[in-house]
């Protein structure tokens, strides 16, 4: 391996990159547009979600509680069920996002201070839609019955809240806070741009005929690969910084730390994605094919990685596929580091998976890269 030859390829790639205005624009504008598009589209905070109620205790307390719930603006009571079965059906059919049950012993227990409950069930198959609404219920018990608990029942107002809200999430037990989406976008945007960039980079050499000259020189496959990937590593890093900055400024994504693990994970993921693009280009004959293959890789990366749907909410087979998709592991690193402040000790498995990804893809690419035109 010769550093001079790697450098030669690198400078060449970099120069070509700067000549190609469209790609240039794509690299910078695409992440921003996608981040705004997806970030706002998915990250919005929906109000007035349709809600069905079942009131088994027709009392002043129950009405006050329901009034307080409606007052949050998150819940629109659109149905009043007569039986639990009716209530269940309303959600199963998708007519409502929430159901609220006020049990028959509600008033009695409130008065006695005996752990009164109301039950809220959320259709969490679209977790970003329910997250904020559920959060709004947290302060409810303290406030809802303030004015009702006077005189004889005043002692019940004392220290503990008069009742608790029991929330059941149905169809998808893992609740995802809305800001999960934005760190996830980092993985998706990096995959989309980087895989495609290198996949096109090599097939372009074949299509334009320049591969014939390149192969006639003494440059070796590994040198071509390193030289071609290096400028795009920089591109990937720039994209990462842009996305994280926007995530912070526009979406208030918490950044709990974990910068070390995030840097290592990002680097591995960038190199792996670029090498994957390189691998695809050794299979594809034309730029169009390379493009199609990239899309074929990117779709499951979006759908099965835990970006779009909560990973544990997926069926086993989908989880299994998801596990072999690198983005899945990258998302765990990004979310773990940014949202939970996890470090190497917690995320070593995901980093291991990403390292394996890099090694496998680079080896395959080297094995497949043709040094002849056969």
């Amino acid at each position, binding site marked *: 391996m010769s550093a*001079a*030859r790697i450098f030669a390829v690198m400078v060449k790639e970099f*120069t*070509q990159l700067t000549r*190609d205005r469209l790609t240039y624009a794509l690299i910078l504008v695409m992440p921003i547009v996608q981040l705004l598009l997806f970030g706002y589209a998915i990250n919005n905070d929906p109000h007035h979600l349709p809600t069905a109620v079942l009131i088994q205790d027709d009392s002043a307390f129950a009405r006050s509680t329901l009034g307080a719930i409606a007052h949050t603006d998150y819940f629109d009571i659109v149905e009043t069920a007569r039986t639990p079965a009716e209530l269940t059906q309303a959600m199963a059919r998708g007519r409502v996002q929430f159901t609220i049950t006020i049990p028959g012993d509600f008033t009695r227990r409130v008065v006695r201070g005996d752990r009164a409950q109301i039950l809220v069930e959320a259709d969490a198959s679209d977790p970003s839609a329910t997250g904020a609404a559920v959060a709004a219920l947290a302060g409810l018990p303290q406030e809802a019955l303030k004015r009702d608990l006077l005189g004889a029942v005043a002692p019940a107002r004392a220290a503990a809240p008069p009742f608790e809200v029991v929330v059941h999430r149905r169809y998808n037990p893992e609740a995802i806070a809305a800001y999960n989406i934005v760190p996830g976008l980092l993985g998706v945007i990096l995959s989309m741009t980087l895989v495609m960039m290198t996949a096109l980079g090599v097939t372009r050499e074949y299509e334009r005929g320049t591969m014939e*000259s390149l192969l*006639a*020189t003494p440059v070796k496959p590994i040198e071509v690969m390193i030289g071609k990937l290096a400028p795009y590593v920089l591109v990937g890093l720039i994209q990462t910084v842009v996305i994280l900055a926007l995530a912070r400024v526009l979406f208030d994504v918490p950044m709990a730390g974990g910068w070390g693990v995030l840097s290592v994970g990002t680097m591995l993921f960038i190199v792996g994605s670029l090498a994957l693009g390189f691998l695809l280009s050794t299979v594809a004959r034309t730029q169009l094919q390379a493009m199609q293959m990239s899309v074929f890789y990117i779709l499951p990366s979006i759908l099965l990685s835990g970006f779009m749907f909560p990973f544990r909410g997926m069926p086993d087979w989908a989880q299994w596929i998801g596990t072999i998709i690198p983005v899945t592991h990258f998302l765990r690193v990004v979310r773990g580091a940014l949202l939970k402040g996890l470090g190497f000790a917690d995320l070593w498995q995901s980093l291991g998976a990403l390292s394996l990804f890099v090694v496998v893809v680079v080896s395959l690419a080297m094995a497949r890269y043709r040094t002849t035109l*056969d």
Partner: protein
Amino acid sequence: MTFAVDVTGLNKSFGDKHVVQDLAVQVGAGKITGFLGPNGSGKTTTLRMLCGLLTPDSGEGEVLGLDFRKAAGQIKLQTGYMTQRFSLYEDLSIEENLTFVARVYGLPDRGRLVTQTLERLGLENRRRQLAGSLSGGWKQRLALAAAIMHSPRLLLLDEPTAGVDPKARREFWDEIHALAAEGMTVMVSTHYMDEAERCHDIAYIAYGRLIARGTGREVIEGSGLITFRAEGPGADRLSRQLAGAPGVAMAAPFGAALHVSGTERAALEAAIAPFRRPPFHWDEVEPTLEDVFIHLMGQSRDNFE
């Protein structure tokens, strides 16, 4: 004579298409060898196999004294290859292309070398122009310059002057001869007869087989072709009457004149006898390379089928 390229039994198939068949290629060291043959006869394929860009199905021998199948890496270092289709980077400038080549070959004193090359090409004022914006003739000159930058001992040129104007072609060939005079071995494929005549040696292939080789004179003599030339008003129009007549292998107009060739003298003379009268004037002439090649092309097709 020592050979820079001495390879025998070369074969290459693409799928079930046998493109190069039992070909022997010999190129004298320091000589310019013309590589001729009709479209699709396997010239490009052969050149690519010689410089390691295609893997031959079989064949053995030496290129620059090295086993051409095992030492492809070392051969590449000493070989310059100019592709049939322009294959430098069109989105890089002239200077950037040359710099890239110089870097990849690890050439010392790169800056001076690139400047020298630009000056020799007469392109120092346009060094920042993108290669893709050059005209066809300039592209070819740039490609040649890039191919010889690392001072290779063997230069393989694949139709280097296709689509280039006569003056530029003349200059191109002057340069090739200058390089050969310095000791470089050149193998050049071409469809132009005048270029074939400028070569020291010629190899003619058709359908992937070697049909004729040697100096121009040897090829002409080896063909056994006899040619008569008719001049006079309307001579060129006789071709229609003569073509296909017994003994006539070929009748082709050359401007206002006509060349009629065949391999058997008696039959040929009998065929042209009816037209040996005024206003036509007949002479026996030496066949040109073009006569020979067209004849060979026809013959090889017969053999092939």
